[in-house]
């Protein structure tokens, strides 16, 4: 188990290095540069060149890459071309925001999906199960920006329950934080919950056909109880894997929601930095995303053996 984790950790570091090269290379593909954007329509070529020199854009790519990586290793993502400020606090701040948003969304999705999916599996032949399945299908088909806008119209504009946009850090006021969190989290979670419901349902259906459920019933548990005691943990294994991937996609999929709800998360930071060709910031943000997604994968890979003794012993 320890060597397994160590092995994965080495791979993890290598992956990060590769990712940094890819990010850097990708960025050099982008047409336009920060100096040009900063100077806008009034720019003269000389002014652009001067600004490029100031940003260090005239240095050879290899040196820029090297400086950047060395900086990151010391926790310093560099200085933004555009703002002249250190990038690290910006990234830390926006990661926190998106982190809260995404984790809340995945938790909500799980809270919705696990009971619904289980119920849909248990009652698969009833109208209830069929209804849940149908609803989850429809849920998947709704683009999240549409869901967001509709939620705002209903719960903010019509009912006035929640603010229509904005963000407040929990330390500034818990009430304000929560009330602003609800709508974005719900609009993010709905689609995810719908997808997850289907996975849970199919995992539970698979598990219910397992012989050990029959054994449990032969022991004197009812079907439902057997499912809860023996089935859910087994069903959790495929669901954890899916949820891990979903978390990764959520992390980067939050950008639309952040835009609609004016949330200063990592998605909007990314979009803004790209628009300004603030490439150091883009690189930093993407590296943090890659880091997080790899971590999530790592956690999932480690979590599955924890749940499943068969894999634990095999590795």
């Amino acid at each position, binding site marked *: 188990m320890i060597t397994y984790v160590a092995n994965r950790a080495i791979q993890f570091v290598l992956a990060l290095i590769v990712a940094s090269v890819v990010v850097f290379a990708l960025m050099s593909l982008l047409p336009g540069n920060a100096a040009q954007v900063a100077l806008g329509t009034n720019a003269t070529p000389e002014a652009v060149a001067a600004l490029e020199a100031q940003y260090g854009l005239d240095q050879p790519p290899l040196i820029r890459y090297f400086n950047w990586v060395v900086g990151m290793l010391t926790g310093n993502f560099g200085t933004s071309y555009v703002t*002249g*400020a250190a990038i690290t606090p910006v990234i830390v701040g926006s990661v926190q925001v998106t982190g809260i948003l995404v984790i809340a969304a995945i938790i909500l999705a799980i809270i919705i999906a696990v009971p619904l999916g289980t119920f849909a599996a248990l009652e698969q032949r009833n109208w209830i199960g069929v209804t849940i399945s149908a609803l989850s299908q429809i849920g998947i088909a709704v683009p999240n920006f549409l869901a967001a806008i509709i939620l705002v119209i209903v719960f903010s504009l019509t009912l006035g329950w929640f603010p229509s946009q904005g963000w407040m850090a929990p330390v500034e006021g818990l009430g304000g934080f929560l009330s602003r969190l609800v709508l974005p989290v719900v609009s993010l979670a709905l689609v995810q919950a719908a997808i997850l419901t289907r996975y849970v349902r199919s995992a539970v259906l698979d598990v219910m056909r397992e012989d050990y459920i029959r054994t449990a019933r032969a022991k004197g548990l009812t079907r439902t109880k057997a499912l809860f005691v023996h089935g859910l943990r087994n069903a959790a294994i495929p669901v954890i894997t899916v949820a891990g991937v979903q978390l990764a996609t959520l992390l980067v999929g939050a950008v639309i929601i952040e835009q609609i709800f*004016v949330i200063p998360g990592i998605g*909007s930071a990314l979009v803004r930095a790209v628009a*300004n060709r603030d490439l150091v910031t883009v690189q930093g943000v993407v590296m943090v995303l890659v880091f997080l997604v790899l971590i999530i994968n790592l956690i999932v890979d480690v979590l599955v053996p924890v749940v499943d003794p068969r894999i634990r012993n095999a590795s």
Partner: protein
Amino acid sequence: SAGASDSGEEAKKDSMTIAFTAEPVNLDFTSTSGVAIPEALMENVYESLVRVDGEGEIQPGLAQDWDVSKDRKTYTFHLQKGVKFSNGADLTSEDVKFSYERVQDEWKNALKSKMDIVDSIETPDDLTVEIALKKPSNTWLFNMTSLVGAVFDTEGTDDLANEAIGTGPFAIEKFTRGQSIDFAARDDYWGEKPAVKNVQFKYFQDAVSASNALKSGEIDVVSNLQAPELAGEFQGKEYQIISGTTNGEVVLSMNNAQGIFKDKKAREAVMHAIDRKAVLDTAWAGYGELIGSMVPPTDPYYEDLTGVWDFDPQKAKDLIRDAGIEGETFAFTVPNLPYAKAISEIVSAQLEEVGLKADIETQEFPAVWLDKTFTEHKFDMSVINHAEPRDILTVFSNDYYIGYDDSKIKKIAEKADTGTEKEYVSGMKEIAKTITEDAASDFLFLFPNLVIAKSDVAGIPANRVSDAFRIADLSWN
């Protein structure tokens, strides 16, 4: 604060939240171009010697008054007394000299060229500044109302990107990048104290989000709504819809220097083919004004040139046949901005009617558009709102992306600038007319200043004639 709607009536009286679209990436307009920074800072945090009012007239700013020498080359400004910077320093003529020389030496913003004409700056005493120009200029003083005229403290330019120290009625309390700027009124402001003490500029990428926030009462004003169709939802007692003018001419620019539109006939065909009224009605819900030239009505040399090119598809077809470009395809580069994309849809449809096919390429704005269209001139047609004040000569000069042959107007322009005010106005009128008649580009409409506000907000200027969004005049009824 953001929670304006949360707090009670009393608190509301001295705070206000205003929605904007373009966010400042930093606070330093000396090195960063774009409208967002001056919009937030000019006249609120930084002030110039002079300012321009809603009718386009120049008014005193930090300069109480000024004298112009006989040869119209030397301006003597008398500064206001008792003006303090927000860092506590007093305003002296040295600051002015420092600031304006700095424009020439250190600014990165290309607008600094507006200061090129300045020959020397003298400070006979603490409250007097003498600025000598190399030659007389009608535009210089007006240019001073823009951001190049901003006066900085000699000690206050260390970290312009994050800290703005100016003489204006407000100081920046908090700048949350990408989100909001909180302004707090200064107690030690030299002029009239603003009615609203705390003002927040809040930045919305998405116009619908902004309008929703207004509906739910989280903000008080939406400045320059980027989705004009939404304005319709605010008809009624609770809100006011203000649609004034700006300096932004929405130009359907054509590449005069090369390609299909090098031929004047082709450009004329476009002028006849496009129903500007329909464009305005569909693309921008009818808000805005048809102008027919590169001059907004607030400029002294405005003239209604909407009649020069009438909508006449048949004539357009004939011209196209004459030019031998029937059925040809041209490159239409469109910045990914709401108005530009909307316009491109209807313009391409109208051009197709007369036998020209647009190959639309949407370009990321600013980065890609600046690179490909603006710098490399890889385009036949584009559409952009040229928002700077009095920019006709900049846009229609030889080396600008449109590639207009300015040989005809260059002399007139020179004479106009150095001549008397009257000569200036008539000269500029002639230039505007020449450009329009040359079909250099199609001036689709004047971009509106579409502001939606709660009905009890007062003091919102109808017209935006300068870079600044002046918040000192705002108040609650």
